[in-house]
């Protein structure tokens, strides 16, 4: 990240979002909303004195509510760019109008409360979508406490706790009473592989990060004991199986094949009732902390972005690749590429690999002066076209534009966007729209010649 912020060929637009995308491969017009961060990025030196002096605390999103942050803050220590942002919703200056400590303290006079939202339009040749994923909300599981039990956390919470620079300084504590957790129960497949919760797919990353966390727990706190309820261990990857074995053999993680049916409170302990299906017996474990491996789900606004980019997505909201095996990083829309977990759950090596592939594919287009396209695209005969523009309505790829010929408005196909689906040809009343190689005359001629052959070979009886 830091390196990319210094590269002269890379312009980093942080705290911004894509509002609209028009155009096609090589000629994307992208509208970007730059949100006001109320700090002048050109003046700020990143000295952090504003953060130190800020008076208002709010729960930290980065630490998933386990710690707090100021209302002028950097999301995390190594954030790029090294410039804070003001949280307008909670900041004393915006809520009460009384506080302006940060602007008084700033030695570089970088605080600017009057910054406005800015919308810019830029031209791009290709687009790579890497919007990532979010976590499944386990509150729908009544049997796991529906979010009522403070000591039932997710893998990401534990990850923050295990971070020595994190909210607990690397200590694994029980959020209910801040005491050290000794018995830790992991539950795999919470939300994922669960038809009833709408996510029948495997989240792919949980088996490995749970094994890692079990190893780290034993490493940091030798007195701790991890119990892992799993359905299947999916450790397909280089050295993955060995890694899980290591957690079991060397770090004493107890793997129990079965699922947890209920968590309930008894005193200040949590009782986890599961099953060991290999023995065929119920298991009850007194736990200090329960860690749920919640499903990887698409970002909450993934569908919205897909509509802006005009790329297809599956029933869950993951973006669809053009071909699962042969074009794994391309979207169906030319010039738009996919990488990371916005496509399906991926771990770090997979994300790095697909990112490399997507960048090279994007550069491949940009490195050539001319674009080679599939010739089977639609065309409109402007002499016949009546200008009803029905084709414009039915085109799923926005590949129809209008032009004026002799004072008459007619349709025209943008051949780089067209996929040759034939919707326009089927809709056109005047038969002006056709697909190259599949015009009505060509198809009739083919049918007629087949009939000729069949008649000649006496394979077809024609009753006059």
């Amino acid at each position, binding site marked *: 990240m830091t390196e990319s912020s210094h590269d002269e060929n890379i312009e980093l637009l942080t705290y911004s979002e894509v509002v609209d995308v028009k155009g096609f491969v090589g000629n994307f017009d992208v509208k970007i909303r730059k949100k006001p961060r109320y700090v002048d990025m050109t003046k700020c030196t990143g000295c952090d004195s504003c953060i130190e002096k800020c008076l208002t605390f709010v729960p930290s999103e980065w630490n998933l509510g386990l710690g707090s942050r100021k209302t002028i803050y950097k999301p995390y220590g190594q954030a790029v760019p090294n410039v804070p942002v003001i949280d307008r919703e909670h900041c004393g200056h915006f809520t009460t109008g009384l506080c302006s400590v940060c602007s008084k303290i700033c030695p570089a006079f970088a605080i600017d409360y009057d910054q406005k939202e800015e919308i810019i339009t830029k031209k791009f040749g290709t687009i790579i979508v890497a919007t990532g994923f979010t976590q499944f909300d386990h509150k729908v599981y009544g*049997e796991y406490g529906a979010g009522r039990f403070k000591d039932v956390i997710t893998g990401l919470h534990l990850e923050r706790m295990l971070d020595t620079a994190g909210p607990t300084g690397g200590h694994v504590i029980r959020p209910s009473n801040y005491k050290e957790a000794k018995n830790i129960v992991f539950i795999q*497949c919470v939300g994922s*592989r*669960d*038809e*009833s*919760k709408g996510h029948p797919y495997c989240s792919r990353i949980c088996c490995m990060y749970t094994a890692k966390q079990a190893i780290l727990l034993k490493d940091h706190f030798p007195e701790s004991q991890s119990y892992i309820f799993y*359905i299947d261990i999916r450790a397909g990857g280089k050295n993955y199986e060995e890694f899980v074995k290591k957690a079991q053999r060397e770090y004493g993680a107890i793997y129990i*094949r*079965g*699922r*947890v*049916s*209920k968590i309930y409170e008894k005193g200040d302990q949590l009782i986890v*009732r*599961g*099953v*060991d*299906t290999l023995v*065929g*017996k*119920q*298991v009850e474990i007194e736990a200090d902390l329960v860690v749920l491996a919640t499903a990887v789900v698409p970002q909450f606004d993934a569908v919205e972005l897909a509509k802006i980019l005009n790329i297809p997505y599956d029933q869950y909201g993951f973006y669809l690749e053009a071909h699962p095996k042969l074009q794994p990083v391309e979207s169906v829309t030319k010039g738009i590429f996919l990488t990371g977990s916005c496509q399906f759950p991926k771990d770090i090596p997979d994300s790095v690999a697909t990112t490399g592939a997507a960048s090279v594919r994007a550069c491949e287009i940009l490195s050539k002066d001319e674009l080679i396209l599939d010739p089977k695209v639609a065309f409109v005969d402007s002499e016949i076209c009546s200008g009803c523009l029905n084709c414009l309505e039915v085109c799923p790829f926005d590949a129809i534009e209008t032009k004026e010929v002799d004072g008459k408005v007619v349709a025209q196909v943008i051949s780089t966007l067209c996929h040759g689906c034939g919707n326009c040809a089927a809709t056109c009343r005047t038969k002006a729209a056709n697909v190259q190689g599949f015009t009505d005359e060509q198809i009739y001629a083919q049918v007629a010649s087949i009939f000729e052959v069949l008649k000649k070979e006496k394979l077809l009886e024609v009753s006059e």
Partner: protein
Amino acid sequence: MKYLSSQDIHQFRNYILSVNGEDVSKCIQCGKCSAGCPISPEMDLQPNQVLRLIQINDPRAVLRSSTIWLCASCETCSVRCPEEIEIAKIMDTLRKLAVEAKVPLGEENVVKFDEIFLDSIRKRGRVHELELVMRYNLAIRQPLKDAHLGPIMFTRGKLNLLGHKIKELGRIKEIFRSSKRIIKGQE
């Protein structure tokens, strides 16, 4: 050893599917049904094992198990199943199949109790506890099993010697008649 062949493996699963619409092949054997079952420690087969035996076409073992008779139909399994399989419904179907197939039942006493219970309802429209207990204890050949409780319960007014009848007994009988019709209609 011949274990399974693709030709006959789905027979029992298909049969269950056709009878009550529950597809056992959806089961991923996570074991959540067995984990939540309040009676599973008493069962000879765990609920997930019952489903597995249906998956591998072993009706013999399933229909003789005590599990299908001990199931209390609390439906904890059905509610929590990630694949939305109604396991309690399957247990119900299996009970019916076991009686029809005339195999040695895994829990004879449960069947006896059910019969006596329903008979009491048929006659009175509600359960007569004293009759139920006495007839059941006779049926299982332990006539004095609960005898020590009788006097205590009687002195506290918990036992009625003659039992009650409801007013519209005819309507109860109608329920029994129509359920019989429904069962016949299914066959």
